[in-house]
């Protein structure tokens, strides 16, 4: 199983790196860097406002747009692209465990998109924190944000991977979930919020109430960080496990 995961990861990481779509998504992910440069120029000397802007970019762009889009595409691709492209036999007629194929591809695509997100996050954050580059706390915060986005990437990718293994129109369901459910549920009070991934991600970020987008945390009743991390890891492993199970049991027929 481990050998399968390693070999599949290597192959698809290499394949993913070479694809044109990766370049398009990478460009998309660089918007915060461009904004960071503009903000530094516009808000020169007003570091607290700069950080407030960064928080907004993190919440709105990274958390609720970029990782959802990237994980939706790459997560559903784990299985769907093999079926649509009819390349599945190249994997399933080799001495590779089916679960290993899923986990290996999941890991490869998560690594790719996490890399894209991290480059963008690090560049935009460090540009905006230019005056505090000498402080250890700066890097601590960066690691925290990167960790949150990584957990989010893993959880979403696992969820969409699962969708891709058993649904034909996984993209549409994924869009409805990622941009419909995840957005709407945040306005619900009490425990309802806990039925979303974004709730746990926001629980791990420093809470703030300033700015135009405070409405997005208006009803946030955060879960404790330890529980949030545990839940995210459980979501990841749970959906990944289900994806492996479905992939092992299901037959995939190609459209001729």
């Amino acid at each position, binding site marked *: 199983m481990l*050998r399968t995961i390693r070999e599949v990861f*290597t*192959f698809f990481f290499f394949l993913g790196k070479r694809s044109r779509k990766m370049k398009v998504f990478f460009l998309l992910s660089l918007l915060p860097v461009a904004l960071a440069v503009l903000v530094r120029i516009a808000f020169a000397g007003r570091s607290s406002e700069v950080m407030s802007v960064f928080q907004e970019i993190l919440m709105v762009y990274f958390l609720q747009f970029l990782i959802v889009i990237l994980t939706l595409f790459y997560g559903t691709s784990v299985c769907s692209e093999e079926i649509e492209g009819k*390349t599945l036999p*190249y*994997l399933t007629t080799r*001495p590779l465990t089916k679960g290993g194929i899923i986990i290996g591809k999941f890991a490869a695509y998560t690594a790719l998109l996490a890399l894209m997100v991290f480059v963008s996050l690090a560049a935009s954050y460090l540009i905006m924190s230019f005056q505090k580059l000498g402080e250890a706390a700066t890097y601590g915060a960066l690691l925290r944000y990167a960790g949150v986005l990584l957990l989010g990437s893993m959880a979403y990718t696992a969820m969409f991977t699962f969708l891709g293994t058993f649904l034909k129109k996984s993209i549409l369901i994924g869009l409805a979930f990622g941009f419909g459910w995840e957005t709407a549920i945040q306005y619900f009070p009490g425990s309802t919020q806990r039925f979303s991934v974004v709730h746990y991600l926001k629980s791990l970020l420093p809470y703030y109430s300033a700015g135009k987008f405070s409405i997005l945390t208006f009803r946030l009743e955060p879960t404790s960080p330890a529980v949030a991390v545990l839940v995210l890891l459980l979501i990841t492993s749970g959906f990944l496990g289900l994806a492996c199970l479905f992939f092992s049991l299901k037959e995939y*027929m190609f459209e001729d």
Partner: protein
Amino acid sequence: MTAVIETRNLSKWYGNVLGLSDVSLGIEPGITGLLGPNGAGKSTFMKLLTGQLKPNIGSVSILGRRIWNHFDAFAKIGFCPESDAFYEEISGWEFLTGLLSFYGFSKAEIRARAEKALDIVNLTGDKDRKIRGYSRGMRQRIKFAQAIGHDPEIIILDEPLSGLDPLGKRKLIHLIKDYRDQGRTILVSSHVLPEIEAMTSRIILIHQGKILAQGDIHYVRDLIETHPHVISIKCGDARGLAAKFVNEPYVLKIHFGPDGDSLVVETHKRDAFFGRLNQVVLESALRVEEITSPDDNLQAVFDYLVGK
């Protein structure tokens, strides 16, 4: 010889559509041709053998082990799928080495095997081109290369000659025969009868999901007693020869070729006919130029069995 591939009561449905019905057979080392028209169930059978589909009824085993979800078995199996599908954005070399890496070979071994496979299919010069830029024939050849790169014991080829030019087909057929001589088991499917005939006389005929016949093509032909054999003889005195056979009970029909130099005999006892023919030729010192069996080929066998 023990069968390498065995199926027992193998059946597969796609909803209400029957893909394969109650197939029980064994495939031994050597080349076996799987023959049938489009939609006969060849690809379904191949997909069941390679674990891509799960049987509804029955079982498939390769080398004594059930194939569904048994990934270890694939170390000894090479499969060339029918569909023209690839990871288009990488080169032939990257495609081949990438797939070979799944077998746990070392880097040096992967390189050596990939070079050998590319050499076999004559793609060494184009190995660094993206597959997207390959012609139809090149794509078919790289598909074959990935099936043989790891030196499998069992090779399953679904329409391997499709898209190849006549020279390419000849080379591939020659290659398949080489693998047979090495003692491997090769199952080749096609709907083009001369291609199968050029490779092997051992066939499985499939139509509408059912196996119509299995075995040596001549033996299968002989089994079809309801349909007489047709034998064409070209000689100097066709009418004289015909007179010698007219009273024989096993001769069903005699007619003459358009040129007048040949006669065509229909008989349901081929052995008896040839025995008598030898006698007649010796007795009358008749000069026979040519003897052929126009229907002792796959097309005729298939047509008879399908009931055309």
